[in-house]
């Protein structure tokens, strides 16, 4: 059974891919989606009532499709724009996820998205994996991993 945090992560990701990326997430992965190769990875460090980072990886050429949809173009944009799109997706997912966990009265500060996982010097020390999500998109998928410096209770918020 999914925890509250898992639900929040799925909901934030699904709504972002639908409303920003104009893609309908699949509930379950097909073999093709499961076996797709990675396109790119980005992370967003956040600070506030609790600290941590969110990692977003996209697979199977999905990043090119999402970026194309976001820009309203008929072909996949240049790699630099695709990376920018990936960063913005992670930024929006993170920005919607954190108040869903901590409550709308809390204020978080999000760093600019960075390629890959955070530099150890930049990442909040002691961050551990809290929640993951895997969403089927087109011929590929998106994988998300939330890391935080303190335990988040299954119902959300710092433990």
């Amino acid at each position: 059974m999914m925890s509250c945090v898992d639900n929040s992560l799925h909901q934030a990701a699904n709504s972002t891919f639908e409303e920003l990326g104009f893609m309908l997430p699949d509930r379950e992965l097909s073999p093709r989606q499961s076996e797709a190769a990675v396109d790119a990875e980005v992370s967003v460090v956040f600070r506030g009532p609790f600290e941590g980072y969110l990692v977003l990886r996209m697979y199977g050429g999905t990043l090119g499709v999402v970026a194309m949809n976001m820009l309203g173009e008929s072909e996949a944009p240049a790699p630099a724009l695709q990376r920018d799109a990936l960063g913005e997706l992670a930024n929006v997912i993170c920005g919607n996820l954190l108040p869903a966990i901590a409550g709308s009265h809390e204020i978080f500060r999000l760093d600019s998205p960075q390629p890959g996982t955070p530099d150890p010097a930049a990442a909040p020390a002691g961050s551990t994996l809290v929640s993951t999500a895997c969403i089927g998109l087109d011929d590929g998928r998106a994988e998300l991993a939330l890391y935080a410096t303190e335990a988040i209770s299954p119902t959300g918020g710092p433990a």
Partner: protein
Amino acid sequence: MAFNVLVVDDSAVMRAMVIRTLRLSGLPLGEVYQAGNGAEGLEMLDQNWVDLALLDINMPVMDGETMVDRIRENPATRDLSIVIVSTESSDTRIERLRAKGAAFVHKPFPPETLREVVLQMTGVSDDELCGQLAAPGGELDF
């Protein structure tokens, strides 16, 4: 009347999405300026006449809220129409921004939501837009 617009966001893709939505909204656009952070945005305002600014909050160098403060402190830009386009969900922060005269659109946004807020801030009505579109030479002039 054409509106000069400034879009401030550290994501070039998001700036492009906002500008595309503005163009599709039917709002008569003049010059469209872009900036990657609040400091660059203020430089743009120093150099150009702008009628409407759309700002993100979380940006490097200078964030959107600080930029709003600087805009309101400057007599030349004090009355600028501002729309915040952000993932910000803190009630405290949103109310603070609204108290500074900014409208707020939450990311991710349906295009029609941004359109509605922009039309409210600029005072352009749908009737006026339809009138412009249907005028001789307008898009609906067959």
